[in-house]
């Protein structure tokens, strides 16, 4: 089993189908692009147009990113234990041992 697998998974797209793209939408200026979903398109330009029609119909965003799903490298779900478990008992990595002054509101 390879250490890395693509986000699109093992299932190869049907020959006659357009490739899959992941869509990221920025809700408004200053915010990050957030993953909104995925769609099929022949190429990146068409993917932007589809993303506009599928994911910004209700004014959800002001900017779009699309990326071929096959270009995303994802962590392997079978390695979750070794990748993420070790962080669980290291609570000292959270800044919970500081006394936060009352004046600081937004921490």
């Amino acid at each position: 089993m390879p250490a890395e697998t693509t986000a699109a998974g093992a299932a190869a797209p049907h020959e006659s189908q357009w490739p899959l793209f992941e869509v990221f939408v920025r809700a408004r200026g200053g915010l990050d692009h957030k993953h909104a979903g995925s769609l099929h398109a022949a190429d990146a330009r068409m993917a932007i147009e589809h993303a506009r029609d599928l994911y910004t119909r209700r004014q959800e965003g002001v900017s779009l990113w699309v990326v071929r799903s096959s270009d995303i490298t994802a962590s392997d779900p079978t390695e979750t234990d070794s990748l993420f478990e070790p962080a669980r008992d290291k609570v000292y990595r959270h800044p919970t041992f500081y006394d936060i002054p009352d004046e600081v509101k937004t921490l």
Partner: protein
Amino acid sequence: MSATVPDDALWRYVLRLGDLSLVLGQRLGEWVGHSPALEEDLGLANIALDLIGQARLLLGYAGQIEGRGRTEDDIAFLRDHGDYLNVTLAEQPNGDFGQTIVRQVLIDAFQLELYTRLTASADARLAEVAAKAVKETRYHWRYSSEWLVRLGDGTEESHARVSAALQRLWPHTAELFAIDAVDAEMAARRIAPSLDEIRTAWSDRINAVLSRAMLVRPVDRPYTWFGKQGRHSEHLGYMLAEMQYLQRSHPGARW
């Protein structure tokens, strides 16, 4: 249609624009559930909704000009095909996806050049509607022209299909620029731009996209319809029968 409307020319002109959007929007709506891909289903439906939104504003305005208390719905659902004043290009059947795209390209280019100039109309209401519509139409053009290039410069079959659709629909484009008394009066009153000017701009735009799409511009041919004066091809009646069925069978039905 009686001629007792105070500003008959403006009324007819606004109906022509509104009917163009309504009929084209209804045609695109026929694709819902039948598009080649889910993504295109939504894309075409979005354009259809933009167009119907434009039609609502324009037909509502026509109702005001008319001054008989008819609403946008009355005008859309209770007129017979002889009272519809859209150009016949809009009512042509969807055919395959390629034919729908060709029809869309030809009309988007027209509406884009028209609305861009209508934002400076001497008629304040039309200028407002155009300012909203021009943004939508820019996107429609982007969608349809990109598709035309993909299909025209695509496979042998896609090229053959859009090529045939272009030949079939081209004769209807003559009507877009045919100037009658209404058009002349609107231009003279600076309510509408001159159709000659629009023809030049439209032609440049179409030539450019046809060349990118590896398509040959058909030769202009005489044509015999005049939808702008209520003389339509045989297709409009069937379309309206379906569109108006509910209101005709159950007058005043609401949801």
